[in-house]
Every structure is written in structure tokens, then in C-alpha cells.
């Protein structure tokens, strides 16, 4: 415990860096997955290849990706951008599928009804399709967020500083408390972000929690008898 108390400043600093790197990757991954997921959903022909391809991305070993990407794209492996790009790719792998599945989960009758009311395509997507895909997309986003936060620690192996430092440094110096504090910090961030996403979902999608009214209460809620 002494080590933790003495190094609280370092832990907090690394936590902030770690959070920043993860957050950028999650947001980027989400934004890029929207059009990709939409294309995969809209054009059934490309759906298979897009889903398989993005799924395959996830099987690339993370360390290899962080070494290969900079050598292909020509930027330094040590830069935080390298890690963020890598993490974004993994987030996309999860989220493209989530977006596509989410859009699939929207009742076609609701979509038709919206068209019949006079929604144009673009407006319908943002006011009807996307919000209704929300619960499935959010479930994917929560998985992507937690996995990104955990995965980010690998950055230390190519020289990108974050909570992963506590693992490698703790291992080299044989300070078990340091390694543990790193694990705890990662878990805490992941849980906090997951909770925030959950609350955000509740705030943005109040209809998903609208309690079903029992049949008895419905009758007292009075449909006036037909005149």
C-alpha cells in the first residue's frame, strides 16, 4: 500500500492519459462505424464481406498491429496516435456489426409507417431508424468501450505511455502493488465508463424503460366510451 500512497500522483496522471487515449478511440470508432454499419445494413450484398472483414480485424494480434501500422503508414510507433488508431480499428470491428444489427432490429412496419407519414430518407434515419437501433448499438458500444480501455495497456510495449506502464515497470522492479494498482485503475475506469454509457442510454432512450401498464390500470386510464 505504501507504494500506492507514495505514487498516487503518477497513478492519477497515467489514468488521465489512459482515459484520454481510450475515449478518443471509442468516439472515433463509433463515428466511423455509423456509415460503415449503415452500408453493411443497407446493401445486403456487401453486408457479408464488411462484417467478415471487420470481424477479421479483431483477430490481428494487437502488438503486431501496433508494430506493423506505423511501418506501413510511416509514423512513429511511440506516438499516442499509433495506439489510438490501433484501438479505433478494434472498436470498429465490434461496432460495425452492432450498428448493422441494430438497424436490422428496427421493425420494418415502423419504418414503413414513418415513410407513410412523410419522412424523407435522411430525416427518417436520424429520427426513426437510428434511435430505434439505439439499444443494440449501445450494447455494442459498452462492449467496445470496456475492451478498448483494457486493450490500451498494450501500448506501453511500443512505448506509448499509459496505465500499462504500471504493469511493465512493476514487473521489472518486482513491485506487485504497482501491477495491482494498474489493474485496479483499468477496471475502475472501465466500470465508470460503462456506467456512464448506461446512464446516457437511459437518458437518451427513455422509452426503453417505460413500464408496461398492467391491464387493470389501463381500464381506469379511460378510453371514453364511443359517443
Amino acid at each position: 500500500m505504501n507504494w500506492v500512497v507514495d505514487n498516487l500522483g503518477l497513478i492519477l496522471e497515467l489514468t488521465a492519459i489512459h482515459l484520454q487515449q481510450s475515449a478518443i478511440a471509442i468516439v472515433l470508432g463509433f463515428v466511423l462505424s455509423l456509415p460503415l454499419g449503415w452500408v453493411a445494413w443497407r446493401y445486403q450484398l456487401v453486408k457479408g464481406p464488411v462484417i467478415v472483414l471487420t470481424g477479421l480485424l479483431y483477430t490481428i494480434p494487437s502488438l503486431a498491429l501496433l508494430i506493423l501500422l506505423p511501418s506501413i503508414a510511416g509514423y512513429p510507433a511511440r506516438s499516442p496516435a499509433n495506439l489510438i488508431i490501433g484501438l479505433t480499428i478494434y472498436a470498429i470491428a465490434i461496432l460495425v456489426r452492432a450498428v448493422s444489427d441494430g438497424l436490422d432490429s428496427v421493425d420494418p412496419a415502423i419504418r414503413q409507417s414513418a415513410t407513410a407519414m412523410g419522412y424523407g430518407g435522411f430525416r427518417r434515419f436520424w429520427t426513426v431508424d437510428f434511435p430505434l437501433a439505439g439499444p443494440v448499438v449501445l450494447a455494442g458500444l459498452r462492449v467496445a468501450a470496456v475492451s478498448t480501455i483494457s486493450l490500451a495497456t498494450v501500448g506501453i510495449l511500443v512505448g506509448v505511455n499509459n496505465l500499462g506502464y504500471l504493469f511493465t515497470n512493476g514487473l521489472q522492479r518486482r513491485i506487485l502493488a504497482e501491477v495491482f494498482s494498474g489493474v485496479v485503475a483499468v477496471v475502475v475506469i472501465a466500470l465508470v465508463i460503462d456506467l456512464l454509457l448506461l446512464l446516457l442510454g437511459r437518458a437518451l432512450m427513455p422509452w426503453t424503460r417505460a413500464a408496461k401498464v398492467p391491464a387493470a390500470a389501463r381500464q381506469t386510464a379511460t378510453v371514453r366510451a364511443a359517443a
Partner: protein
Amino acid sequence: MIEFRNVTKRFPDGTLAVDDFSLVLPSRKTTVFVGSSGCGKTTLLRMINRMVEPTSGEVEIDGESVLGGDPVALRRRIGYVMQNSGLMPHFTVLDNVATVLRLTGVKKAEAHKRARTLLDTVGLDQSLAERYPSQLSGGQQQRVGVARGLAADPNILLMDEPFGAVDPIVRADLQQETLRLQRELDKTVVFVTHDIDEAFLLGDQVVILDKGARVVQVGSPSEIIENPADDFVAAFIGADRGRRALHLKQTPRGTVVVDSEGRTQGAIVDVPDSVTDALLSEESATKGAP
């Protein structure tokens, strides 16, 4: 007035849903398309608001082809009520009713005000305004669906089997409500159903359809019951059985009408005795014949 002129619709999979259909639907009347499932009645309805575009032929509203303008603007001018209500599950009742008003650029406060008035029009309690559709009964959802269809005060209201999924008691209630609304609002209503009783109850003009939207008979309910065009219609409307195969029966307190099961359906009123006497003697004569 809505006019179909030689309209044909062949879907990409080769199905001929509508084959050379022509008909005039008079303004401010209710026209009911009735037929078994797959006869093309919903396709006909959806060609009016261009949810489906004809392969050939013309659909005109007041002499103007629906294919001419912007389909989105067209749909906002035409009310649409569908089976299972088709309400937006993520909108409150009020937002659902206000949908078309908001689409046409009415400010939120004003749209909500008008939506509240519409809840009264369709007989829904104001306390339901902030609920989500999942919190309503099937009948209440359909009422919200009707209110939404009427919100922008369209001249034309399309109703696609709107009461097909609610229980019989609620359905009867909604049918009466529809009749009342039609008396009050005077819209051109196009109604699709597979229920011939519903068609006769609600329709000024009833169109009986067979496969490929082939018109078997068009007429007022009375015309069709009094003079079915062929055996298909007679069988479809059940002219030879049940509630429609009626005959007279003399009772000590007057003449009554009984159905084919022998159940009394009503009494003859306001008819001179001479007429019922004549009818009864004619009937006993037919019965007496070998």
C-alpha cells in the same frame, strides 16, 4: 376524387399484384377495398400515397397524377392509418400525433396544442398524452394512430386494415367511432379490410376484389347485398347463409326476422300489415312447395 386508370403493378419478383385496375373513388365518401389476403388491396391503397409506384397506368387525385410531384410532400398531405397502429415506439402519444405537423414545420408548442385537441376528437383521455405506445392497450394505440392520421387535416385518409389486430369488442367500438368521425369530418376515406361486415358497415362504396385486384363488384352495400354480381360475391358476402339469409316469422306480437340458424335478428316495424301478410303468405307458399 381519386381515380385509378388502367393501373398495373408487377413486383420485381414477378408477382402481378394489380392487373389493369380502373376505378373512381368519390370525394368525401368512404370507399372500402375488400378481398382475401393477397388480392392486391393494400397495394392499391399504397399507390395512392406512392408507397408503391404503379408499373403502368395513372393514379390521380383531383385530376393530378400522384407521380408528378415530390412523394414526401404528397404523403404529408394524405393521412395514413395502418394495422398494429405503426406508432413510433420512441415517441410519446403527443409526439406521435404531432408527427406530420412537425414534419411540415409547425412549431412544437403549436403542434402539441393541436395534437391535444385531436386526442379529444378520437376519444382519448389527456392523461395518456405523455405515455409511450407500449403503455397503451391495442385499442388506445389504434385511436392514437387515427389521431395521427388526421393531425394535418388531410382531405384523404387511407386506412389499411386498421382494426384487424384488436379484439372484436374494441373493433366494434372503433368502427362506430370511425363512422362518427366520418360524419363530423367529411374526409375522402379509403379503407382496406378482409372483413365483409366491416366493409358493409363503413363503406359508401364497396369494392370486392379478387386476385390481381380484379374488380368483382362495385356498389353500395345495399346494391351488393340485393344483387350480388355472381356466385363468388354471393359466397363472399355470405348471402346464402347465417346472418344474411333472413326470413320472416309471424309471432303473436308481430312479424320478426330470423336468420338461417333460426335466431331472431329483429322485428319488422313501420310496414303496413298488408305487405307483411303478402310476404308471409308468399314465404309459406314456397315452403309448402315440394
